[in-house]
């Protein structure tokens, strides 16, 4: 499925803004991304499997906080890095 990558993670994807990845759940998708781009998951998800405070995950435009959310191959996942201030 199509995954949109935010600019703070471009160093992992060699600047690619969109990548293809597989997974039947958000957790599996993140594991698949991490296998391909080592270290990427830890920057988004902490060691207690909580989404870090300034990361948001959207599936087909819907904000998702449950990593067990099921995914279909036609879904689109958008990773957003959201932060305000200097």
């Amino acid at each position: 499925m199509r995954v949109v990558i935010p600019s703070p993670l471009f160093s992992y994807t060699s600047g690619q803004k969109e990548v293809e990845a597989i997974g039947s759940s958000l957790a599996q998708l993140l594991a698949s991304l991490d296998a391909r781009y080592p270290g990427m998951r830890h920057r988004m998800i902490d060691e207690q499997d909580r989404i870090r405070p300034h990361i948001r995950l959207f599936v087909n435009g819907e904000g998702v906080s449950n990593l067990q959310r099921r995914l279909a191959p036609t879904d689109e996942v958008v990773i957003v890095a959201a932060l305000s201030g200097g």
Partner: protein
Amino acid sequence: MMQSSSRSGRNDAVTLLIGTRKGAFLYRGDATRRGWQVDGPHFLGSIVNHLVVDPRDGRTLLLAAKTGHLGPTVFRSLDGGRTWAEARQPPAFRKAETGETGRAVDAVFSLSPAHASQPDVWYAGTAPVGLFRSCDGGVTWEPVTGFNDVLYPRIQDKVNPGPDGALLHSILVDPRDARHLYIALSVGGVFESADAGASWTPLNRGVEANFLPDKDAEYGHDPHLLALHPLKPDRLYQQNHCGIYRLDRPGVEWRRIGRAMPTEVGDIGFPIVLHPRDAECAWVFPMDGTEVWPRVSPGGRPAAYRTRDGGASWQRLDRGMPSEHAWWTVKRQAFCADSGDPVGLYFGTTSGEIWGSTDEGETWSRLAAHLPHIYSVSAAASV
């Protein structure tokens, strides 16, 4: 702290390793320590809490970073900062059991090489307070269970966050014994281990903690930085929220040597730096700790203070620094010494300036300006 080698009367070139709120910089100096070439920024936009060289090979660099958006990690360079590789397994707490509230590392704050006999071993201190060890040069990190899962649950009622969160900021290894460790937590206190971190004993007797209801508390104190003299490892110093202290082991009672500081300046500050060859000599950088704790130079007039007699007396060292309206201070990891003769001193300010002295603090000059808020300055032999 400095790791370059030097012989009396001759100084080696020095590289300053600078961690800032917006990235890292290397300032490569010549042997005069007056000409500097900047290399950077590295990791522009990343919060770099600490950048240090491995004193055991004089070459490997470790850097603690996160960004505003992304979680904390560690990077390593084997070629003087030209290329960097991220830790395969950064410091992280163990996964919580069902029903247990798990902790997550928010920032890797401090990186400390282990004993000289353990060339690939490093320690990391984090916010929230956690202690981690790497046995492969910083590639993978494991929790030190004796602290994270044994001591911390016992003391967490008195581990309180400061403005930057609760930090484990000082990790010191006795050069005579790789298993003998000291750590310091802000806020939490000083602890000692004789078994490589498996068990810990509080070491805070004699230290004031005027913010605690129990004046005789065993822990819960607020050391801002802990230092151990490498040639006299039984001599410890600490700059604390409540003054400057000294301890001579095997004694266990700290003595407030900051009482000898001028009353109008006080003995509050973040850093304390030791002379590499003289255990009686140390430098501090006082800040305003009155009322709401402005944490700027007292009166807007910055100065280092030096003792040459183990804290019995202190001399103000401000020649070359602004004489007024300089409302900055120096963070706990942002003041260091080299091992030159005379010793070179370097500090970075919260306003993004680097200052240096080639005469043990007698005179100062500004080496760089307009950098981001500086979190750490360490000096190394030319990297």
